[in-house]
């Protein structure tokens, strides 16, 4: 049996890769992929601990998270498309018509 700490470490590593990607990448598409990694890190935790605790609510929630991630990406891609049409680029640091 794999100790539960390993699952926590794996998910923390995947989550941190996602955070790194969010902070360093300028392309909106890379941003979406990084967020996806973060969501899937949560999925690893949920499934592993669903088995550990012996109930299914974690696994069921993972299905919901995946569906919601897909919905979020659909809307996100739409916004990125309009971004490209207006700014001719998907670099998230380019869209700066407003400044404080």
């Amino acid at each position, binding site marked *: 049996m794999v100790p539960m700490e390993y699952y*926590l470490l794996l998910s923390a590593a995947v989550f941190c890769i996602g955070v790194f990607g969010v902070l360093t990448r300028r392309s909106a598409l890379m941003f979406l992929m990084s967020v996806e990694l973060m969501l899937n890190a*949560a999925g690893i935790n949920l499934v592993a601990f669903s088995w550990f605790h012996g109930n299914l609510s974690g696994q069921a*929630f993972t299905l919901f998270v995946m569906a919601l991630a897909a919905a979020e990406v659909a*809307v996100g891609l739409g916004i990125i498309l309009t971004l490209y049409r*207006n*700014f001719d680029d998907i670099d998230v640091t380019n869209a700066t*018509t407003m400044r404080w």
Partner: protein
Amino acid sequence: MTELPPLTPQLVLAATALVVFGIDTLSPDDDTNTLLAGVATTGTLLSAGIAAWFLSAGTGDFSFVQFDGALVVDALSLFFAFVVGTVATLVVVASHDYLADQEHVAEFYSLTLLAATGMSLMASANSLVTVFISLELASIPSYVLVSYLKTNRGSVEAGLKYFLVGALSSAIMVYGISLIYAATGVMGLAPIAETFGNGVEFVGVLGLGIVMLVAGFAFKTASVPFHFWAPEAYEGAPAPVSAFISSASKAAGFAVLFRVFTTAFPLEVIAGSVVDWSLLFAALAVVTMTLGNFAAATQENVKRMLAYSSVGHAGYVLIGLAALQSGGGAENSFVLGASMMHLLVYGFMNTGAFLFVALAEYWGVGRTFEDYNGLAERAPVACVAMTVFMFSLAGLPVGGGFLSKYVLFAGAVQSGFAWLAAVAAINSALSLFYYSRVVKAIWIEDPSDDLALTGQPTGLYVAVLAAAVGTVALLVAFDPVAQTANHAADVLFQL
């Protein structure tokens, strides 16, 4: 006699959204703006009305648990269903004129209704699963609504930034939920609290999970450290959408925040062993209100000033959680009730202020303070309403904002957080400076010669005036609201 299901306000909103889609499918080419606005207004009014009726009929005196504990209907959820329904009504009525020349009107109304459904459900969410799903149901349509003007660079940029921060914070939040599940093995809010009965296990994992959960709520309520989307999104979005997100979405975010932290993580158990979240919220409240008010004072753009003022108000409302103390009893429900009252009053005065900006955009007036110079000579009625909103937001006794702020600060003092009330009072005094700049511009400054207002925006006028009447009425008839809010807090604390 048949009984309505306790979730009727939410069901009505969702059904109306589908009806709007249906009408658009049947006649996609006709100009159905008025019909769609009428249907949407009926739905939101009905939802708010049913929530108010349920509240007065005493449906909220007990917790109606729905779907095996996933959702709950009590006084808190009905109170916020009413707030969301009212704000959505004002926004839909105002959108009728704002959208007159736009395409895809039906999508706008139905996305507004779907987002309102999500916000209404957030107040009922009773398990971390439904918390997350209802939060996403409110967020995803909001991203689209913010970037609705898809050929306008400001709107697209606002939508992008809102989406980026929203996606990031919801990913952090769901990771937090997975850690809480890892530590407790359950998702329901009440069952989570029950697992602490035998002592708290996995303290580190649980504590980290709770802190990450706060990220999602901080985004929804535009609090520090997830506030920086707010000025951009509110400035770039169509003004009715800014009104909707800054009022209804914030109220719903606070509703779910109140329920999660008081039900799942009782301060008595958590504060000593895991993380003292009332201290965390006290720090967030101070930083949020100070940053919001100081940044608002430096703005030249009215919409952006309102955005930062909205961040500042999130700070005031956070006092309701910061001033909770273990074993507080009546003091706890007093200060939490005060936060809820402030959110209701804020729903009227802030929505009204953003809808006045929508009116100015409709007339083609610019966006800075100077552009508003002398508006009162051309549109005195709307400017009286705007003056009421501004002074009520600042906390002067012309609107309900005075009483709700007073009760909130008094509640903080009563719970032994006089320093928090003092910081809030100083901030409130500062806010008078930038709110009165708007009043000075519209009443005292002279208009430029070419300032001419064309068009008959009946819907916008009706919405702005209704919000103004609501704001003033809450000053006169504050008692029933205060009693309802305190009662809702009592039910939440099971007093």
